């Protein structure tokens, strides 16, 4: 990365350090969840690893006090940036009653928190895209100066809801930003067997909006793309499609073995471009992340993750009969 890029984008040293911390926090919570899973303490993990830069870069380009997000299951970085805490994520991992996402009803990664304007998500992919379009439509009707950001994987860009939702947004020029986190795999099926067009961003053309492909390992590149998209949206110029290309560094989930369909060499190569390494290097070169600061950041995060884990592990489950509640308004 060349020098001073963050300043050219209007970001302070403090802000980029904050971005790095949040990327690292997402990574460390994720890694802890894998350990807990392998130790038999939590049944399931689905990972953000490799996509933190895109998630944090995009989130920091938004108004995190007012904008809405419709994340997908890998978006731990997005929900952290929008105000969900480590403790809350761990409560979700352990399926405890206090989990704000679902009270222990949904698998981890099924985010949602109204107070932080994080729309609730499900497992069938891409259903969240029309929801984000609906939020944008409603905001436009009420003349609220906000945007919605919806994220999804590249495999999901084959679903009908992707095309129906983007077309709707394009026709009505709605303030919605769609970011496809292209991690190159839909479970085991690689990108070349998923998408006929050269890029996911190419698909924007059919829906009357610009489409951009950016380096998803570079939080500043993603920040810039989303910031521009937000400006367009707020100015009434309509939606934008952004494809952030990175790599899925883990198996699809804790129930998947990726050695059956991809070479470890390929994963090793991708790890060299891991944003946690490359962005740390940038911050070091900019004299923002000194050894002292790095140690302090690591210590803080380790403490936070430990405390969150302990709290969530010891928290109560919902009562069995709580399963009956909230089918309808009570």
């Amino acid at each position, binding site marked *: 990365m060349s020098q001073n890029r963050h300043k050219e984008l209007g970001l302070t040293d403090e802000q980029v350090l904050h971005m790095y911390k949040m990327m690292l926090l997402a990574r460390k919570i994720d890694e802890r969840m894998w350990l807990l899973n392998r130790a038999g303490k939590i049944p399931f993990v689905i990972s953000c690893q490799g996509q933190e830069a895109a998630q944090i870069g995009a989130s920091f380009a938004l108004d995190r006090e007012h904008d809405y997000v419709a994340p997908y299951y890998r978006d731990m970085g997005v929900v952290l940036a929008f105000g969900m805490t480590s403790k809350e994520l761990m409560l979700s991992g352990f399926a405890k009653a206090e989990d704000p996402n679902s009270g222990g009803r949904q698998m981890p990664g099924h985010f949602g928190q109204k107070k932080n304007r994080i729309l609730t998500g499900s497992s069938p992919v891409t259903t969240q895209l029309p*929801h984000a379009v609906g939020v944008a*439509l409603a905001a436009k009707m009420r003349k609220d100066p906000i945007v919605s950001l919806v994220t999804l994987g590249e495999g999901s860009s084959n679903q009908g809801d992707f095309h*129906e939702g983007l077309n709707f947004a394009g026709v009505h020029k709605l303030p919605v930003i769609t970011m496809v986190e292209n991690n190159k795999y839909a479970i085991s099926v690689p990108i070349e067997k998923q998408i006929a067009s050269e890029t996911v961003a190419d698909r924007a053309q059919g829906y009357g909006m610009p489409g951009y492909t950016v380096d998803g390992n570079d939080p500043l590149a993603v920040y810039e793309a989303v910031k521009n998209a937000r400006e367009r949206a707020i100015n009434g110029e309509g939606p934008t499609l952004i494809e952030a290309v990175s790599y899925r560094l883990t198996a699809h989930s804790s129930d998947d073995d990726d050695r059956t369909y991809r070479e470890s060499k390929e994963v090793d190569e991708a790890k060299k471009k891991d944003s946690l390494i490359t962005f740390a290097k940038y911050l070091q070169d900019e004299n923002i992340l000194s050894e002292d600061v790095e140690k302090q950041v690591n210590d803080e995060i380790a403490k936070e993750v430990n405390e969150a884990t302990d709290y969530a592990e010891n928290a109560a489950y919902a009562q069995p009969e709580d399963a009956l509640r909230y089918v309808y308004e009570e």
Partner: protein
Amino acid sequence: MPVMSYIQAVTAALREEMQRDENVFVLGEDVGKKGGVFRATDGLFDEFGEARVLDTPLAESAIAGVGIGAAMYGLRPVAEMQFADFIMPAVNQIISEAAKIRYRSNNDWNVPMTIRAPYGGGVHGALYHSQSVEAVFANQPGLKIVMPSTPYDVKGLLKASIRDNDPVLFFEHKRAYRLLKGEVPEEDYVLPIGKADIKREGSDITIITYGLCVHFALQAAEKLAEEGIDAHILDLRTVYPLDKEAIIDAATKTGKVLLVTEDNKEGSIIGEVAAIIAENCLFDLDAPVQRLAGPEIPSMPYAPTMEKYFMINPDKVEKAMKELAEF
């Protein structure tokens, strides 16, 4: 009290709710300038403008999904599916999303959305403009399914659906749109979702049904009254969740029950009604519960001979009622 048609009651309810609450808006195919293919949204575009009477792209999953998003933001969308038969691309949004959003978010989010769709046959609509699709959705807790039979019920129940804080599927019988007329108060009123309604008091046999079949049963009952058979008719009005208490009361009242639906028999709403009666009314029954329904074929054929063969009509209901009375 003014007399209006079934579809005029739909329009009246929409107009009054849009006047009352600026969060209410309509979206769907052809609902705007054209006022709907059946003219259910007639005049709303001129009165409320393009933003609140929104013509959407022809894409049902987006209509439902965008509606869900707008509802989560705090609006009260009324989405129209042009025909109930065309709701299928939106099933994922309705069942995986709308029905489960309150539950899966542990009461954090909710979806105050109404989806209107014309259903039912007898209009030369063939396979894909005639279907009854309620059974597809009637085992999905989180959804409510309303199927009114009279203009009075249409207005009161559509208003209640729009004001409801959970998703409601509101199925309107398309043959009833102009066939049925009735008195509808001009003033604001709502009717309770989840409550069945006795449409005729009687003491010999009980008919439990909904939608257009309520009228077939009422017509048959008038004829049979001349023969001394006094029929009790319960209109389910809400087919999911069912009004168990009203079903049990109606079945117990006469001990002889005929269930009628225009849908195929197997797996239909009336199968569940029969199960409720079987569980609760064994010692009050004087005859096996009878079901009158469409045949087990995929949908209603186009040719008038075959369409008529499929459809429920007053004669078929009368025959079934008479057989039950004589049991």
